[in-house]
């Protein structure tokens, strides 16, 4: 299936280096409209102010974690259908279960590769 790669993608991570890596990997698969946020609160502000077709977020951030961001997104009538991929070093089953219960679209564990990122985006947008 064809994906709309012109959509706005919001990437959220408190490590600027990781934002840069994800942005570059997205660019390599032709997602060029990428915005960044460094924590959940900033991301929520951008999501409420703009229009995004996909959120890719880290978990471990302060003051609002990626899980809290996901919960806020799913509780917001306008945002609740936005595909949401968690990319995180949190690899315990309890984390995956909590994210799933909160409505995560897919879950990528760090360190990840470009193929995994592309695969999960295709799966998520295919079901969006």
């Amino acid at each position, binding site marked *: 299936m064809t994906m709309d790669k012109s959509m706005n993608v919001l990437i959220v991570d408190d*490590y600027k*280096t990781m934002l840069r*890596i994800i942005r*570059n990997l997205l660019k390599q698969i032709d997602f060029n409209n990428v915005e960044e946020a460094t924590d959940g609160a900033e991301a929520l502000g951008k999501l409420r102010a703009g229009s995004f077709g996909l959120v890719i977020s880290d978990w471990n951030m302060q003051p609002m974690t990626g899980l809290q961001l996901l919960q806020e997104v799913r509780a917001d009538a306008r945002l609740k259908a936005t595909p949401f991929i968690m990319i995180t*070093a*949190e690899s315990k089953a309890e984390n995956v279960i909590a994210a799933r219960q909160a409505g995560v679209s897919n*879950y990528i564990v*760090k360190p990840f590769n*470009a193929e995994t990122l592309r695969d999960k985006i295709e799966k998520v947008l295919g079901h969006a």
Partner: protein
Amino acid sequence: MPDTPLPDEAVLRARLDRIRIRHPAPAPEAVAEVVRAVLATMQGDLTATETALLGEVAELGRTIAAAKAEIAALRVDDINASHIPSATDELDAIVAHTAAATELILETCETLDRVAGTLAAEGQGALSAQLQDATTRIYEACGFQDITGQRITKVVTTLKTIEAKVAHIIAAFGERQPGGEPLPEAPPVEELLHGPQLPTNAMDQTDIDKLLASFD
């Protein structure tokens, strides 16, 4: 029948209470000295069991005094004053240096990506793809900075916990410093924020995919 303190026992208790007010935390070696002095004056008045028991108490006092001396000789306060701050500074420096190096690598990769774009525009698609494949691998590898950063943060948290525990040991067994700083609290551990797991404890992407699929 309820225990009723004898008059002379009540007097003794009152005297002990007054002593406790004057000396709320007597040094263990002082207690041992008092026990030895009491034992010396009571030779012949005590049973063998009582004498052995009091001997044990005196020995306990000497052991505590020796432990205090050993802890003082270890200079455990140096751990909090110097070693742990120094170790955390070194770890912070590692994070800063690796972040700077990673940024430089990424900047260079972005230049290579632009070159790949130019090559593709000039009809050299195979070379462009080869170059971009190489930069993709570098981007993936640069993720190490995030993972090592989180691991180092976990180590720093552990060091701070050790620092707090050492402070407790110093307070319990070391020399008492009247009016000293309050003990630092161990950093709180947020629920579900475990950070990167060691490979032996971690679920990999395949395990996570299976777990997620089990909900469908």
